[in-house]
């Protein structure tokens, strides 16, 4: 199989951190706060690496959009088994307003450029809970999508996806190339072991700018205010 898989990994505030709203209420405090890979992205990487270990795909490419720090996240994906990484450089104001629409445009462009056969993303990010990037990417590429996947099986050039939906489980068969978004029960991500982290240092990460891909990252959304929720259950 000569398939190439693109996996999106997002750098988010670590799930265990207590979130604090910035005093000016324009966002949350991110300075000096512990960040890590979005848990659903970890599951996505794990699935891609598993496919490679089963020799069903040839290459796993980890992609992340953001400033210099996202390289750590890409490196973690490399340590988990991805072959190479792509860092799409977005920083400053652009990064603050980066959302699913812009990211999906970037992914669509990259999928064409890298001639990817499969894109695996986490179903949503734990910071914005958008749950849109996968769907938008598929739409932009006009590819089929298997979202909320709890099981993925490659059968020749078709993908059988078991989806977690409100009523239970739905099984669908979609053609490749396709977009899959990973749900919680898809797999249990492996630890990036220290020896693998050391080996991953030798793997390549290429830098690319959104402009190079012909993508405009300006946002059409404006955040008016961010507030801490009052205690649940109190009126």
């Amino acid at each position, binding site marked *: 199989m000569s398939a190439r898989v693109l996996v999106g990994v997002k750098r988010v505030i670590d799930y*265990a951190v207590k979130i604090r709203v910035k005093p000016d209420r324009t966002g949350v405090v991110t*300075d*000096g706060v512990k960040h*890590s890979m979005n848990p659903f992205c970890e599951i996505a990487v794990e699935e891609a690496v598993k496919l490679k270990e089963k020799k069903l795909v040839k290459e796993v490419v980890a992609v992340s959009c953001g400033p210099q720090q996202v390289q*750590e996240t890409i*490196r*973690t994906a490399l*340590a988990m088994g991805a072959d190479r990484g792509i860092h799409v450089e977005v920083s400053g104001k652009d990064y603050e307003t980066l959302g699913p629409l812009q990211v999906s445009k970037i992914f669509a462009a990259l999928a064409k450029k890298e001639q990817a056969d499969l894109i695996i993303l986490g179903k949503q990010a734990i910071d914005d809970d958008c749950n849109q990037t996968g769907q938008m990417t598929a739409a932009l590429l006009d590819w089929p999508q298997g979202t909320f996947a709890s099981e993925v099986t490659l059968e020749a050039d078709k993908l059988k996806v078991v989806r977690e939906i409100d009523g239970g489980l739905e099984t669908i068969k979609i053609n490749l190339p396709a977009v899959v978004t990973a749900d919680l029960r898809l797999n249990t991500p492996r*630890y*990036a*072991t*220290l*020896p693998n*982290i*050391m080996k991953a*240092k030798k793997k390549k990460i290429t830098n690319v700018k959104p402009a190079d891909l012909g993508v405009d990252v300006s946002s059409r959304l404006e955040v008016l205010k961010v507030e801490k929720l009052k205690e649940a259950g109190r009126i």
Partner: protein
Amino acid sequence: MNLNKLIVLSRSVKLGRNVFAARGTCLHHFQSRRFIRSSASSLAYAKDLFLGKVNKAEVFPYPEISKEELEEINQLVQPVEKFFNEDVDSVKIDHEAVIPPETLNGLKELGLFGIQIPEEYGGLGLSNTMYARLGEITSLDGAIAVTLAAHQAIGLKGILIAGNDAQKAKYLPKLATGEHIAAFCLTEPGSGSDAASIQTRATLTEDGKHFLLNGTKFWISNGGWADIMTVFARSEVVDKDGQKKDKITAFIVERAFGGITSGKPEDKLGIRGSNTCEITFEDTKVPIENVIGEVGGGFKVAMNILNNGRFSMGSAGAGMIKRLIELTSEYACTRKQFSRSLSEFGMIQDKFATMTLNAFVMESMAYLTAGMMDRPGVPDCSLEAAMVKVFSSEGSWICVSEALQVLGGLGFTKNYPYERYLRDCRILQIFEGTNEILRMYIALTGMQYAGKILTGKIKEMKKGNVGVVFEILGKKLKDSVVRTVDFGLTGKDGVVHPSLTVKNHAKMFEQNAAHFGSTVESLLYRYGKTIVEEQLVLKKVADVLINLYAMTAVLSRTSRSISIGLRNHDHEVLLTNTFCKDAHFKNNFLLTQLQKNSPENNDANIKKIAQEVLAKRAYVCSHPLDRTF
């Protein structure tokens, strides 16, 4: 101070050297190595403090690692933290007194069994600094931390630092993956602190190809599981005079060699998940290729191994205390009594300050020492490492106790981890060299060094080296006339950042250092060779030195933080100033007690009390309710 006294000193120090040698304590090994006069660094930072000299180039600026290394270590830390937070059930490990195989496998897969083994043998090849950094996380579970440390900080260290290439190639790969676990076998039922008195024997077979090992080792961590052991035994050695002597040799012993039985695991107060047991060797056949270093050179190997591993206790302790601060402050800020949260009360705030200061000093000292050890060459930081160990073990004990106190009754229950941390912590003051032995080592190593230098100078004087005469006289005059001291820490070209000199905290350090130097000199005059017996004096000397080293570490670290603009560096300035002020006054008191006929010194009485009680082996006083009529 006159010249005659100096000459008397030289004679007594020479005698002192022989006394040290004859005692065969763990101190004599360094005599063969240290050269006196080449003032070229060789890392004599702590030792030169005994001469009242501050080698600021050794410790300023604070050691720094490259950006790549920092990124790497941050990357390495993440999965380990995740593992310890999610897959380590410390309560279960403590309760069942065993580390489950799945957890052990997880640790092996993460690569934590070969942190310092070179990459060519399958390890991670990380530096001391990185090892210390990972130690901050593994310390979250005491049993695991000790198991890992017993395996790599001491168990296989001998092969790493003193083994030949064949031994390394044979044993290190499986040790790196954790397929084989290592243990360090020195202690015996009759030989704990007095390591040189071990009785396990290794006799050469007739054909000269094997040693037969016979004896019992005690308190061996990983003893029940270890496949590869570094064992120390006495063997007959013919020295250069043709005389037969019994000297200690280090051996790599495989369990597969046979004749090895491990006793049942000890039921301990803390670190209950760590396996500790007795190991008996009965005619265990060890091939001569498995001798580490030279036959008869085992003691040096043992001391090098132990000195090498101690510094990481600082970062381990700091990691644990930082976690405790988080847990305890959650409670203190939410629990209310008298309509106010505990965090508003002074005595509670005092505890948090204690924990913060201790963590700050511990990590500063640990990383300073690790940074020094990572310098090229083979720097000897055994003195500095010992100081880190003493400070960290005692600091950890106090901090855990205070944290427990904040939670009151809750802290006392098994529903919270405090009691487990407390029990796990207690061993820190005992193993890897008891704090009593280490204080002796710290004090005597330094005093001997100072004594040698002073003797050397006297010899020069006697030879007629006028330069030295003027140097000594000049110093004496200056000390008696000029009251201020300047080691180049403060002022225009000072290495310490100006913010730390505002309230003279760096100056306080310099004053203490100078005072310490002259106190050491006067102690050497007063006691000469008998200083070895004066443990209470040596304890104070060691305590002053530990404080001085701690002050150095925080001054150096904070100077760097300010200079590069690290986040929250003004908090560091606050911590540094607080600690230095405290330490300065403590040192002053200790140094006052060390002066001749000091009224503040209660040592003579303390000894008398102990003697009277120990003579009767009981409390001696009559009962307060007794009558005489």
